[in-house]
């Protein structure tokens, strides 16, 4: 691996959007047109910033050079970028939980993990083929700070043990092996 500026890294951008139709789409356009690869969008509906705007968290991949262009383009389009950079969330990590996820309050499970760590859930996919009473599975992607992935895994394990859920962990903290 080299430290060349051509290397694609992942970034998290926090945006404030006005509550108007099309605002999200307008915000994503500068990312795509400046060579960013969108990984996930976390739209915090119902949660308003002090200015009454809607906070949106966007994970994307880009080279450092392109990332600068993206932030400039966003600002140029009048979009409020509250935080941008790799320093906040630089690692993505995926786990799968299985078991009685619904009966054990999935939203409480996620809150406990997020409260105990600095991780943010950026993607959640649930599969409950037999209905909510039976065992189901959830795939959860967390964005974590650099080198904090192991701490998140440990917390996921603890909470899962508490609720008798099964954790399928990624191989290696980043899951890239």
């Amino acid at each position, binding site marked *: 691996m080299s430290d060349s500026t051509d290397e694609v890294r992942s970034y998290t951008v926090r945006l404030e959007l006005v509550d108007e139709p099309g605002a999200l789409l307008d915000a994503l356009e500068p990312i795509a047109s400046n060579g960013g690869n969108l990984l996930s969008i976390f739209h915090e509906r119902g949660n308003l910033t002090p200015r009454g705007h809607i906070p949106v968290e966007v994970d994307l991949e880009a080279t450092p050079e392109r990332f600068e262009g993206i932030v400039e383009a966003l600002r140029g389009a009048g979009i409020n970028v509250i935080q941008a950079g790799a320093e906040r969330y630089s690692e993505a990590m*995926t*786990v*799968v939980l*299985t078991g009685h996820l619904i009966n054990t309050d999935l939203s409480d499970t996620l809150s406990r993990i997020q409260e105990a760590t600095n991780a943010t859930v950026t993607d959640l*996919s649930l*599969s*409950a*083929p037999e209905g909510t009473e039976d*065992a*189901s*599975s*959830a*795939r959860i*992607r967390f964005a974590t700070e650099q080198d904090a992935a192991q701490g998140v895994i440990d917390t996921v394990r603890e909470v899962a043990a508490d609720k008798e859920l*099964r954790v*399928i*962990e*990624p*191989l290696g903290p980043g*899951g*890239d*092996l």
Partner: protein
Amino acid sequence: MRLAVLGAGAVGSSVAELAADYGHSVTAYADSQSAAVDPDGIDVERAFERKETDGIVGEDDPEAALDGAYDVLVEATPTTLGDAQPGFGHVEAALQRDRHVVLANKGPVAERYADVRELERESAGTVLFEATVGGAMPVLSTIDDFDAEHITAVRGVLNGTANFILSRMGAEGLGYEHVLAEAQDLGVAEADPTFDVDGTDAALKGVIVANVLSDDGTEYTLADADVEGIQDIEGSALELAAEDGRTVRLIAEVVGGEVRVGPRLVPEHAPLAPTGTRNIVQLETEHAGRLNISGRGAGGPETASAVLADVGRLPELQ
């Protein structure tokens, strides 16, 4: 070399059958009830026929095989846990007679590694056990070539049955029970697949690797491994993983003095996500990056090849 082959299952019988091909003779062949012993070499075909028709391999007692003339004892009786008997006793008897031992039986090196090494130190014989980890794949000899000191981690898919089940579940969206039944019909899973699916078999192999890598004399046994199986993996978990370009594999991992076996998320096209019964071991080396060894991790002739490769590595006895 003259071989005494203990164990007449898939591996033992293949060793006896292939020995001549590798320039060796079989001077004893035994199952748990009987033995064929001849210092000039037994008639292997005849022993197979008798096993088929009379249920015995020859007229001698199994003990006679241990006491007979041989250079190398090939221990291919079933793996047992705890005191690893009777396999351990066979190793002991051969080493006390200053004979070499080649193991296909995982028990002695997974459960009583320090005892085996102690016996070996006092003997003119050498103990090799390539066949105990990864069937035909040269895992232990590669670790030996690189020197355990320069290997920082070993990860792998070391159980073909579990891998077959997980890859079928992932590919076909089928449930665990359904795929297990199919695997049993195909002969990929045994009637009692417990050790394959609960992670024990992969853990024994991980423990053996940990013993080989151990640089401070720490001995590992199955009790030191953190083991989870695949029995309660939901089909929906594999589906969700696939949507994200990943899959689930039963991975044995030896790193930092810890042995861990459990289902893990791996990228779908990663080396550590083989399909079917294929095995793979990934060595993380200090100076040469990652090294992948893949191939057939089980089977009579496959495992026998590893046994015979070990025989070829042994020094001539004085």
